[in-house]
């Protein structure tokens, strides 16, 4: 079977890999590009654990063929902020107890970053809509919503 050359920018770094057409972005990220921060929850588009930014827009990597990302820029939670230099959203999640088991967090941060990039001062309804594609089984969402709201406020001031 033919393999294809995949070229993309992952968190600012140019990378390439040989992939098969049926490999999805999620498995290529985790297994070929070392991006284990992208989580595999449902693998069918329902939970958002695998969310990444594709040219700045949140998409589910499990529903995306790796080749659909060819030539594009992919950003994961690690590209949004690092341990040394966390993004205000990441700090806010920690401060608000918006992380319990943490499995949903990489996707939640990705979706909330995408939200704040388009709506810098979202109201609660807009925040809920922004993370509506991300399931969390631990927090009950309120702390996540508060964390995002607070991060937006802090950024404004």
């Amino acid at each position: 079977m033919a393999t294809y050359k995949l070229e993309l920018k992952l968190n600012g770094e140019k990378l390439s890999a040989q992939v098969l057409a049926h490999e999805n972005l999620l498995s290529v990220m985790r297994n070929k590009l070392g991006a284990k921060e992208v989580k595999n929850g449902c693998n069918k588009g329902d939970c958002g654990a695998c969310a990444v930014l594709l040219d700045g827009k949140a998409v589910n990597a499990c529903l995306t063929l790796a080749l659909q990302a060819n030539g594009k820029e992919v950003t994961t939670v690690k590209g949004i902020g690092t341990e040394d230099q966390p993004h205000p959203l990441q700090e806010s999640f920690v401060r608000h107890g918006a992380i319990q088991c943490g499995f949903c967090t990489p996707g939640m941060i990705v979706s909330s970053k995408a939200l704040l990039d388009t709506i810098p001062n979202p109201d609660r309804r807009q925040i809920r809509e922004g993370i509506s594609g991300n399931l969390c089984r631990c927090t009950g969402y309120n702390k996540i919503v508060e964390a995002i709201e607070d991060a937006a406020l802090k950024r404004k001031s």
Partner: protein
Amino acid sequence: MINTRILTQEFDYFAPESIKQVVELLERHGEGARVIAGGTDLINQMKEEKMSPSCLVNIMNVKGLRYIKEDEGLRIGAATKLRDVRAYCFKSRYVALYEAISSLGKPQVWNMGTIGGNLCNASPAADTAPPLLVFKARVKLVGKDGERELLLEDFFTGVNSTVLQPTELMVEIHLDPPGDGAGNAFLKVARVGADISKVSCAVFLKRQGRTCTECRVALGAVAPVPMRVKVVEEMIEGREIEESLVAKASEIVSEEVKPIDDIRSSAEYRRQVAAVTFRDVFWKAWDRAIGGKN
């Protein structure tokens, strides 16, 4: 239906840049070839092994398939992302389409999924279909024998089936201009937010004072294809609108739909909810119609 959650079948892949190349690739690779736009329907169907194409032709790099423009109504390129259509239709004269896309999935789906994909997948529950039907949308198809245009009503032929030939793709969706005194609305009933519809309904109407001069009604998820309910439209057009008339019309809606029992709802439930949903959507569109004096 089991979703294996992995793609097991191998296939060839192309990402051409022109409509002509898409058609050539579809022709060259025959029956096993399929178009992929956002892939949000197709990839899950492949994981469920409902679909096993031998070749995928990605149309997202094709020039001239992603646009929204006002030109004798609204023209939308088939590969336009749901996200962009939704943003455009917010507070527009096509607000029912905004409401339909808002109810359909979530940001990740709007960012990947396309309006053409929602139609070509031809789910009975495709949420953009009822509003597009009431806007009298026409779809433009291009294939090896050239171009043709038809009413969206004539596009669907059954569950997941359309008039599309193997070498054809949809290139444009064209909505009629609403005109003055028009109102429209969409509503869906689902188990939870962003789930597939149990029943969906869109209404387009025009009013002059208390009289409804034009009316179109479409429902989704209550028949093998998204359907217009023309008897109801005829009942309402040209009449003064009163509670009793709308109540009678909603009874006819529940007689006209042809729902099935499935995991989401029973047919009987769908019939009753179709009536109520129609009534609510009708009044919403009625209140929105400008030029109407109470």
